[in-house]
């Protein structure tokens, strides 16, 4: 019995990681195409038909690039940092329910687990900044740490409303409870929470307009200034997996998970993927449109605006719940 479960688990794991890494590769392609067309250019077209092999070419290139390690770097930490990032982000995937039957670890505290793991990823970033022994990396690492800490709170609070309405931290149960709710998705009754979530989602994943840790015009490349080749690509993958994870949480908690207006036969995760793609598109759209916040303005926004708003949302949800019952 245990033997069979183990094999099944392993297969499940390998498939999951492969699928997600493929998504990461093609997310970069998707991003370049989307932003390219928004900026009236073509994006990649040369490698393969319509440039479809571009991500693979990029991957091969990064893999075979010289791995440069600065002489003054703290080597063990320098090696470990990208791996910490990637592992933390990958482990988030374990608790995500892609459809009712496909979840690797059906944890009762799924949401908390994801928070814990994404906070852990920022350790990797801070260590990278510290271990590189470069001033730009250091500043990038510091910025990243304070940003993640501030926005983690806002994000956590924005999801408290959802937890209150569901009464569970299990992601599967959140989706199930959502399907039973009057609107079918929580984005409508929890619109304040959803707004706070979207903003902190951008900040958590270090995306424009909150890409200060790697603000290229100020800090060259922030925490990954000194990284090259495969180590850089590990950071890169971690960032994109982070985006996918955040998009999944958004889908699960606010957009109704795998449920859709009608059932698509044979593809139970159709709606889930579609919603994730929509959120990813939103990420890219924002990147093509908005300038970058300044460090102190970012903190102002987080502490003085988003957190009070999220707290007000909790109060409101509580009141509504009491009144309706």
């Amino acid at each position: 019995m245990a033997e069979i479960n183990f094999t099944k688990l392993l297969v499940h794991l390998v498939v999951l990681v492969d699928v997600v890494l493929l998504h990461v590769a093609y997310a970069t392609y998707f991003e370049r195409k989307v932003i390219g067309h928004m900026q009236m250019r073509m994006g990649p077209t040369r490698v393969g038909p319509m440039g479809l092999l571009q991500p693979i070419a990029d991957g091969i290139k990064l893999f075979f690039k010289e791995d440069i390690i600065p002489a003054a770097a703290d080597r063990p930490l320098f090696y470990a940092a990208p791996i910490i990032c990637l592992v933390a982000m990958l482990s988030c995937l374990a608790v995500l329910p892609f459809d009712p039957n496909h979840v690797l670890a059906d944890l009762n505290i799924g949401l908390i687990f994801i928070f814990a793991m994404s906070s852990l990823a920022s350790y990797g970033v801070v260590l990278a900044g510290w271990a590189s022994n470069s001033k730009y990396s250091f500043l990038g690492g510091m910025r990243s740490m304070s940003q993640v800490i501030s926005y983690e709170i806002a994000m956590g609070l924005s999801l408290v409303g959802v937890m209150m309405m569901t009464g569970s931290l299990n992601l599967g149960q959140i989706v199930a409870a959502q399907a039973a709710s009057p609107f079918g998705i929580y984005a409508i009754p929890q619109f304040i929470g959803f707004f706070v979530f979207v903003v902190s989602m951008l900040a958590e994943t270090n995306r424009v307009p909150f890409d200060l840790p790697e603000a290229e015009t100020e800090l060259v490349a922030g925490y990954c200034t000194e990284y090259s080749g495969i180590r850089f690509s590990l950071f890169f993958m971690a960032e994109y997996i982070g985006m996918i994870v955040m998009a999944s949480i958004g889908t699960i908690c606010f957009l109704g998970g795998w449920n859709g207006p009608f059932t698509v036969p044979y593809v139970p995760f159709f709606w889930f993927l579609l919603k994730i793609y929509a959120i990813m598109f939103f990420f890219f759209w924002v990147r093509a449109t908005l300038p970058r916040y300044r460090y102190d303005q970012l903190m102002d926004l987080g502490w003085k605006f988003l957190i009070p708003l999220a707290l007000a949302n909790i109060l409101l949800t509580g009141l509504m719940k009491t009144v309706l019952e």
Partner: protein
Amino acid sequence: MAALEQRSMEIPIPAQEKELFALKMGPQHPATHGVLRLDLFLDGETIAICKPDVGYLHRGFEKIAENKSYAQFLPITDRLDYIGAMANNVGYCHAVETLLNIEVPERANYIRTIVAEMSRISGHLLWLATHALDIGAMTVFLYCFREREILLDLFEELCGARLTTSYTRLGGVRQDVSALFMDNLTKFTDDFPTKIADYETLIDTNRIWLKRTQNIGVISGKQAVQLGFTGPTLRGSGVDYDVRKHRPYCVYDRLDFQVPLGRKGDIYDRYLCRMEEFRQSVAIIKQCLEQLPPGPIVNDDAPDLIMPITPQRKVAADSIGSSGIIQLMEDRNIYMEGDVYVSTEAPKGELGFYFVSDGEGRPYRMHIRSPSFIHIGGIPAICEGEMVADVIACIGSLDVVLGECDR
């Protein structure tokens, strides 16, 4: 080798400021617009001390000028502000013509005005593109380059070169405008105002853009004059000084245009000034295209290598080894002893040439008053007390080019 390392590591730190975090920004940095180096001393993320360091692109133009004839130096002016080469050509030729007292035909003056304004637009487009990119707005960058491409194509149609144009000649311009050029330029002037509106919708009403630019990098009008600022950087602080209005050259005194002024002197005001200058430049080009008179494009008596080469000139040009041109010019006896300072309004600010002539065919001494050099000298006054991210925005709003700064 040890000496080399030691030299590059040396930043003079004031004794009491040892606690500060020293950050050397540049010369290889994505946002310092060339090879500018800033020695920053940070208190947290706030700039306590900022020391710009220039000279990485010093090519000794002033020394070169002393060893070349006036006409020979013209191509080198392209390399000053390599974004607005036309404006430099016009400025240089205007200065030499004032020194040598050469008349410029009417038509050539109009064409010069057109190309100078085109280079102002293309220079400001590059400024807007990089300034927006520095603040993080990526799309504006590509939108601006789309229009700049049209302008560069027009330059190519006009003189065969896109960046290093060397289009003007002493006493006129090199080639007449073609019908294709006129058509395309008319089309461009008609289209461009809608494109400006495009840029403005992208950034002008954007809350983040306003937060990053308003009340940041403030410099009062009085301070700006004290520091010697010119061009849109000075006008952003509300000081009405434009060489085109104060000491008109070419045909600017016959044209109707406004000089936009800012009020507060922050980054946003400088941005608004330059955006309005787009519209004024388009208006100037339109008027010039309407008024463009027929006639010669170059003064036949002008001492230059200008085409078509008459047989006599050709002989003179062939004997260039023994400074044949200079010989030819000396025969005419147009040289004088004395000095002049002549300036024009380049995209970046006032571009002035100070010549000392001792009656020979080359300048005894030439000094280039480059706006970028003076603006970079003013960076500490603008940046100190702001944050690291604002330094980038401030440099962007000054619109500096290091080729011009270091000469």
